[in-house]
């Protein structure tokens, strides 16, 4: 059953990839969505009919598949594992993925690479599901690399554009750097535990002692290496730079891969290995610190971007930072909760942006938008819901998950003293910034003056000539928006903290995930957990701040939508330029001068050509033996015989 979930999109990818060039858009779209739809239905079935009925402490289904590697002690199989964590993931990955595919049917209409798009999207779904359902590190790594590959293929969809091709390469290469750390981590895991199956590794890790802060133990090393992989895949400092450029790909790609699914793979991995992380205080601290800093840092950059997708990209980086901050604080369940709610409203935001972009003929510059709410009511209304959800307004989804994260970080039992509060403060400030930049986006895009009427020259679109008259998108695009909007409203109700409802409403997601993920209650408490009363207080306080920020930002940007942000933010702190100077140019210089000219040309080519020259010279010299004269041959025979006889005479002694 799990096999079907994983392989259904692969079949779709193969069919569309091989035959799609001759098929009509309708067939391609239908096949592409049907395979994912099948996975979705099966995922729900398996979750509710097979996983849920099991006893909460033993919700674990293994489905071994194919004996892949059996070499010495290394056994890596194609095998699947369904437990609460992967169960949650397959639900939202398939469901959101399905609706994004449907959206793509409308968005990519008329594109010459229509079949390529769906083939790669299906391939991506296959890889992502493989990643999530794998039962061992190596198979997960296959999926991990696979989603990176699909990201490359999809970002480079418009490969005739230099920028898109470059962005695709950048994404893949930066990801690869992280993957290097990940691979080292896996090797280390095998060396330590002699197995790479999750169940076995986690069981053995549970017996290991907790490694104190700033001591480099085995678990700390492993967790830090794995986290390097997570910074690459999930776009945290320092390997986040690929995500904003990845916006060169079609918007459904940005929604699916770079918002809802692929980038959450890092969080999945950290949660999967939570047994190890909870035993390494150093790793937890680093994760939380990087997460918190990234959240804040990216939020500041988002304030300075004029491209609607770039704002959302930095927003994604920022929200991912929250998720890692939660995990680092020991609140893995809160992090996963935010993964799920974020998938809903971020996908909605991206798809809404896609709707706008199509209406304005592929113009992504917010300075040339404005006043669209009149023309695109459905897009507008769903976007408003997403805006409020991401800002964290009660009772929408973002409120519950973000608040859970902030609350748990402030009361973290595993962070060094004072840091929990410090990161909490950073999180609150980031939430305020989130409210501000999202309001800016909404106001610049949908409200105020219709700046898109000011002449079309200079925009990336304008190939139709004549004035733009934006209209609402077709149903294939608006229906997914509505679905995601509904989820953005109710999705948060999965995890209402019990403090809020005074125990009447259970915190479903907490109870569900609890047995599958390590929590910090196992004897590592460094602080007393605070009482429930202050949880509501904290939530209300944050809510008030956020609403105040929303109102202020709304007024401000309505008056001055084109207010120029500080240059340092617009230029994203010049990080890309710094990386270019520090890494890209030296490597390129080394490659061209040293490796290519010296090594490749002189040494290797020299060796090969030299051997040939040597042989030729030898031949030229030896040629003279063949004189054609019989008498010289006689002499040679004679001399040869002489040498042999002399040898045997002397050797006898």
């Amino acid at each position, binding site marked *: 059953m799990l096999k079907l979930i994983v392989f259904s999109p692969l079949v779709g990818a193969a069919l569309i990839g091989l035959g799609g060039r001759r098929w009509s858009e309708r067939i391609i779209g239908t096949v592409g969505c049907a395979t994912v739809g099948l996975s979705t239905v099966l995922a729900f079935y398996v979750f509710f009919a097979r996983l849920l009925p099991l006893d909460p402490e033993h919700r674990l289904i293994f489905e071994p598949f194919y004996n892949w590697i059996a070499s010495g002690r290394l056994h890596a199989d194609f095998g699947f594992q369904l437990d609460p964590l992967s169960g949650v993931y397959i639900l939202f990955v398939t469901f959101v993925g399905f609706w994004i595919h449907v959206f793509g049917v409308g968005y990519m209409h008329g594109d010459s690479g229509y079949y390529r798009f769906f083939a790669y999207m299906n391939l991506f779904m296959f890889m992502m599901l493989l990643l999530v359902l794998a039962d061992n590190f190596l198979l997960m790594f296959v999926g991990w690399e696979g989603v990176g590959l699909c990201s490359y293929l999809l970002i480079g969809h418009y490969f005739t554009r230099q920028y898109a091709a470059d962005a695709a390469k950048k994404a893949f290469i930066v990801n690869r750097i992280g993957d290097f750390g990940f691979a080292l981590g896996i090797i280390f895991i095998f060396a330590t535990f002699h197995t790479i199956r999750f169940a076995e590794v986690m069981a053995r890790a549970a017996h290991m002692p907790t490694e104190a802060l700033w001591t480099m133990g085995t678990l700390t090393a492993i967790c830090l290496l794995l986290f390097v992989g997570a910074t690459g895949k999930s776009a945290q400092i320092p390997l986040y730079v690929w995500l904003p450029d990845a916006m060169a790909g079609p918007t459904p790609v940005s929604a699916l891969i770079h918002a809802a699914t692929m980038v959450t793979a890092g969080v999945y991995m950290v949660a999967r290995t939570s047994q190890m992380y909870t035993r390494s205080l150093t790793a937890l601290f680093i994760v939380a610190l990087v997460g918190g800093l990234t959240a804040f840092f990216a939020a500041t950059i988002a304030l300075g971007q004029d491209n609607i997708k770039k704002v959302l990209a930095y927003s994604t980086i920022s929200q991912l930072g929250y998720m890692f901050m939660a995990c680092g604080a020991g609140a893995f369940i809160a992090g996963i909760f935010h993964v799920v709610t974020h998938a809903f409203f971020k996908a909605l935001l991206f798809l809404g942006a896609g709707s706008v972009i199509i209406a304005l003929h592929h113009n992504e510059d917010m300075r040339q938008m404005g006043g669209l709410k009149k023309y695109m009511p459905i897009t507008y209304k769903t976007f408003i819901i997403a805006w409020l959800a991401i800002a964290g307004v009660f009772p929408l989804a973002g409120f519950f998950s973000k608040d859970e994260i902030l609350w748990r970080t402030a009361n973290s039992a595993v962070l060094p003293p004072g840091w929990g509060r410090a990161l909490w403060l950073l999180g609150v400030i980031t939430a305020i910034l989130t409210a501000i930049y999202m309001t800016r986006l909404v106001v610049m895009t949908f409200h105020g003056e219709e700046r898109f009427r000011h002449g079309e020259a200079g925009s990336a679109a304008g190939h139709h000539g004549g004035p733009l008259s934006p209209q609402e998108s077709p149903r294939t695009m608006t229906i997914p928006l509505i679905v995601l909007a509904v989820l953005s409203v109710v999705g948060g109700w999965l995890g209402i903290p019990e403090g809020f409802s005074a125990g009447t409403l259970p915190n479903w997601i907490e109870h569900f995930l609890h047995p599958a993920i390590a929590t910090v209650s196992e004897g590592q408490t460094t602080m007393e957990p605070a009482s429930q009363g202050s949880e509501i207080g904290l939530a209300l306080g944050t809510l008030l701040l956020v609403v105040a920020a929303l109102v202020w930002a709304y007024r401000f940007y309505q008056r001055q939508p084109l207010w120029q942000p500080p240059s340092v933010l617009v230029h994203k702190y010049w990080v890309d330029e710094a990386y270019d100077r520090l890494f890209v140019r030296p490597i390129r210089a080394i490659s061209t001068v040293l490796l290519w000219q010296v090594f490749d040309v002189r040494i290797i080519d020299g060796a090969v050509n030299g051997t040939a020259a040597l042989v030729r010279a030898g031949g030229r010299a030896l*040629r003279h033996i*063949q004189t*054609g*004269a*019989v*008498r010289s041959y*006689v*002499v040679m025979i*004679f001399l040869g015989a002489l040498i042999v006889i002399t040898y045997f005479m002397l050797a006898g002694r």
Partner: protein
Amino acid sequence: MVPMSWYLALGAVLFTIGAVSVIVKRDILSMLLAIELMLNSVNLTLVTFSSYFRELSGQILVFFVMVVAAAEAGVGLAIVVLLFRNRQTVDVDQASMLKL
């Protein structure tokens, strides 16, 4: 009895004369004669040993060598005849068709 070494010395001298002649002579017939000389010097050596050590096998081997020498002389002379018919010369240096 004459010491064995005299016979062996004679054999060595004959062999050397034959060897040098093969190299130095220009006409094929002289080369063939020189080769026969070398073979016969070996025969002499074999007979000497056979006589002085009272071993019969030396003389048996001489018979072998003689037979081979005769056959080889026959073939060699046939080649000389053919060569002469084609080239009108017995000068071995003129038979350098294999030279590149």
